[in-house]
C-alpha cells in the first residue's frame, strides 16, 4: 500500500509541482489506483463493511481496515483475479519466474472480469494454462523466423510442385516461368502471345496459298497483257504514227479473255479478302476463348496459391504452438525433475542417517554383549562391574551369551526379509545405488 501511495504521490507532484507534500497527501490520485490480489479471503475482508469477527487474527483485520482507508483516500479500488492471472506470482515463487518473464516479454495486460468468481484451483488444467499464456510470449515465439526460412517456405518451387502440379492443370509455359508466378499480368501476357502466334500461323497459311494463286494469275496476265500494247512489225511504208488497223486491235475473244482473267483475279481477291476476314474473326474468337481459359486458369492458380499460403501459415502456427507447448511442458518437467531430485537427495540423507544409527544400535545390541546373572537373581546385567553384582560373591555370578535365535531374529537390526536382507543391508545398498547414479548420470 505504501509503495502504491508513493507512486501516486510521485505522479501527482509531477502534475502539481507548486503543492507541498502535505497538501498532496490530502488529494485523491488522478491515476485511480487499483490493487489486485488473488486471495479471496483478503478480497472479501476488504469489501466487508464490518470487521470479520470470525477472523482469528484481529491484527490482520485491523490492517485490512487501514489499507482500505488509505486506498479510499487515494481514490482507488481493490480487485481480485484468479491465481493463474496473477503477475506477482513470479515475485514470490521461483517456479513462476519463467511465466513472469514471458508476460513481461509480451508487454501487455488486461484484467478480465470473471463473473463466476472462480478460483484457479476449481478450474481445469487446460483452462488455467490458457489463462496463464493469454498475456505471455516465450522467447522461442519471440524470435523471428529467419528470412531464409520464409523464402524457402514461400518459394515458387514449393508452390509449383506441391500445389499447382496437384490441383491445377497448368501448361508447361506456366511452370517454366516460376519466377513470374504471382505477377497479375503474367498469364494474360502469355495468352496474348499465344493468340497472336496462332493468328499469325493461320494468316501465313492463308497468305501462302493465295500468294501462289496470285503469282499464277500474274504469269497468265503477263502472257496476255495487254492486247492493246501488243507489238507488231511495221510495214515498210507505214508511218509509225498511223493507227493500226482495226483487226489488229483487241478481238472480242481477247476482250472476253481479258474480262475473264480480270474477273478471276477479282474473284480471287474477293476470296482472299473474305477468307482473311473470316480467318481473322475465327482467330479473334479463338483468342478470346484462350484468354478466358487463361483467366480461369489464372484464377485457379491464384486461389491455389492463396490456399497454399493459408495452409502454410496454419501449419507454421501449429508448429509454433506445438513447440511452445513442448517447451512449456519441458520446463515444467524439468522443474518437477529438479524438485524430485531434491526430494531424493533428502531421502538419501535420511537413509544415510538411519544407516549410521542402525549401525550404532547394532553395536550396542545385546546380541554382541555378554550377560552376567546372579544365580538367585531375577535380572541380567550388561556390565560386569555393575554394583549390584558386587553384592554377590564371584562364584554366584554366571556369565552367559544371548541366544542367537530368540535374541536376534525378532529384533530390528537382525530381522531379515524374504530375500534374507536386513534393514541395514537394504539401506546401505539404496544409498550406494543413489550415490553411484549421482556420480555417473546417464
Amino acid at each position: 500500500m505504501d509503495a502504491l501511495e508513493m507512486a501516486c504521490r510521485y505522479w501527482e507532484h509531477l502534475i502539481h509541482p507548486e503543492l507541498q507534500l502535505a497538501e498532496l497527501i490530502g488529494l485523491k490520485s488522478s491515476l485511480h489506483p487499483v490493487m489486485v490480489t488473488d486471495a479471496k479471503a483478503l478480497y472479501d475482508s476488504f469489501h466487508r463493511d464490518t470487521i470479520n469477527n470470525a477472523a482469528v487474527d484481529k491484527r490482520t483485520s485491523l490492517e485490512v481496515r487501514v489499507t482500505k482507508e488509505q486506498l479510499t483516500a487515494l481514490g482507488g479500488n481493490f480487485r481480485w483475479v484468479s491465481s493463474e492471472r496473477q503477475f506477482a506470482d513470479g515475485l514470490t515463487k521461483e517456479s513462476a519466474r519463467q511465466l513472469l518473464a514471458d508476460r513481461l516479454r509480451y508487454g501487455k495486460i488486461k484484467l478480465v472480469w470473471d463473473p463466476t468468481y472462480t478460483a484457479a484451483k476449481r478450474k481445469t488444467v487446460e483452462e488455467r494454462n490458457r489463462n496463464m499464456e493469454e498475456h505471455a510470449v516465450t522467447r522461442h515465439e519471440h524470435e523471428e523466423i529467419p528470412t531464409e526460412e520464409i523464402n524457402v517456405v514461400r518459394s515458387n518451387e514449393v508452390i509449383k510442385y506441391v500445389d499447382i502440379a496437384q490441383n491445377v492443370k497448368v501448361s508447361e509455359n506456366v511452370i517454366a516461368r516460376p519466377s513470374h508466378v504471382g505477377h497479375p499480368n503474367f498469364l494474360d501476357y502469355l495468352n496474348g502471345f499465344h493468340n497472336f502466334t496462332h493468328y499469325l500461323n493461320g494468316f501465313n497459311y492463308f497468305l501462302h496459298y493465295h500468294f501462289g494463286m496470285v503469282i499464277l494469275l500474274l504469269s497468265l496476265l503477263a502472257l496476255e497483257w495487254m492486247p492493246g500494247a501488243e507489238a507488231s512489225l511495221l510495214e515498210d511504208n507505214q508511218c509509225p504514227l498511223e493507227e493500226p488497223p482495226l483487226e489488229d486491235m483487241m478481238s472480242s475473244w481477247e476482250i472476253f479473255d481479258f474480262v475473264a482473267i480480270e474477273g478471276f483475279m477479282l474473284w480471287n481477291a474477293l476470296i482472299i479478302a473474305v477468307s482473311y476476314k473470316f480467318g481473322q474473326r475465327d482467330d479473334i474468337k479463338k483468342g478470346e476463348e484462350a484468354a478466358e481459359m487463361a483467366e480461369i486458369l489464372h484464377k485457379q492458380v491464384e486461389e491455389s496459391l492463396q490456399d497454399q499460403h493459408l495452409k502454410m501459415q496454419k501449419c507454421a502456427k501449429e508448429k509454433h504452438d506445438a513447440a511452445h507447448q513442448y517447451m512449456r511442458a519441458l520446463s515444467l518437467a524439468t522443474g518437477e525433475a529438479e524438485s524430485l531430485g531434491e526430494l531424493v537427495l533428502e531421502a538419501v540423507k535420511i537413509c544415510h542417517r538411519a544407516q549410521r544409527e542402525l549401525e550404532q544400535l547394532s553395536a550396542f545390541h545385546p546380541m554382541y554383549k555378554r550377560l552376567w546373572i546372579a544365580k538367585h537373581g531375577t535380572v541380567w546385567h550388561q556390565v560386569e562391574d555393575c554394583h549390584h553384582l558386587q553384592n554377590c560373591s564371584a562364584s554366584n555370578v554366571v556369565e552367559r551369551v544371548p541366544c542367537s535365535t530368540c535374541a536376534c531374529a525378532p529384533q530390528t537390526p537382525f530381522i531379515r526379509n524374504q530375500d534374507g536382507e536386513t534393514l541395514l543391508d537394504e539401506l546401505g545398498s539404496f544409498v550406494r545405488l543413489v550415490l553411484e547414479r549421482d556420480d555417473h548420470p546417464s
Partner: protein
Amino acid sequence: MATAFLQGLPQDRKLWVKLPAEALEMLGAPPETRMLLRKPVYGQLDAPRRWYLEAVRRLKDIGLRQHCLDPCAFLMYEEDFAIGRQHPSTSGALGERRLCGVICLHVDDMLGSGNAQSATYQQISNQLKQEFNFREWQEKEDLEYCGASIKVTTDEITLDHQKYMHKVKPMTVEKGQSPEDEMDQKGITQLRGLVGSLQWPAVQSSPHLQCSVSMLSANVTKGLTKSAIDANKLLKFGKENSDVALKYGPIGAVEDLRLVMMFDASFCSRSDGSSQGGYILMLVHQQALGPRIMCGTGNPSSCEELRDLRWPRKLKRQERQWMLLRWLAATGSI
C-alpha cells in the same frame, strides 16, 4: 560528466595532501612538498556529497524544480520559463504548468528526456551544456545508462540489461562437491559478487529475477555450495531471458491512465522459514482494467454477493442496453 568531483563545491576545510613521488617529479616539486586541496577529489568521503550539492544548485539556477520525493529528479516546466510562456507546447506537455522534460542524476551520470518539440526543452538543453562540463553528450536512439540499454523507437522506449547479462560470468563449482559442503572464503566472496551482479539488473529492469535473487541473498552467509549452484542456475535463466525488457509505450491520454499494483505473498517459502512478498506496479490504460462491476451500487462485500449480482431493477431498459454495450465494448467483445 568530466571530472565531476572537481566541479563540486570548494572544500570547506583545509586538507593537505602528500602527492606521489611521480607526480612531484612531473611538477618539479621537492619531495617534502605538501599541497592544499581546494576542490574535492576522488576518494574523499564527502566528494560525492559536495558534487551533488553543486549540481543541485546549478540545476535549480537554470530553473528546474527538484522532485520532493526524488531529490535526484529535476523537472522542467514551461510555465517556469519566459520562452515557455511565450511559446507553449500544443501537445506532449503534462499538467497545467506543462511539464516538458525530466532530468535524473546518478552521481556523475545525467539522463534527460522530454518533449523535443518544446522550445523550452531545447533552450534548457543548450543551457545545460554550458553549465556543466560534459565528457560526452549523447542524443541517440540507443544508449547505455548505468549498465542498462535504453532503446528509443517511435513505438516505445525499452529498458533492458541484455548486454550487461552477457558479460556476467558464472562462478566455478568444483566437481564432486556436495551441495551441502561449505565453501571457503574465496568461494563465498565470489558468490557474493555474483549475487550482487544479478541484483543490479533485477532491481532495474528484470523483475523475473527478483524472487530468486532475494532468496539467494539470504543464503549467501551460509556459504553452502548449493547457493553457488543456485546462483549459476539463476544466471543461466537470466541470460536465456535477457531479451525481456521493461517497455514504455504510448498508452493513451493522461486522463485515461491508471496505476495497477498486483501483489502477492507466499508464506514460509524461504529457506529460513520466513515469507516472501512482492508487488508489481504498472501504468495502464483504463481499458486494460476491463469493465467495472455493473451493479452500480458499490462493490460486492463477499463472494456470495458477487455471484448473486443482478441488474438493478430501477434501471430502464435503454440504460441496461447501454451498459451492456459498454461492457461488451470494454471486454473487447465488440
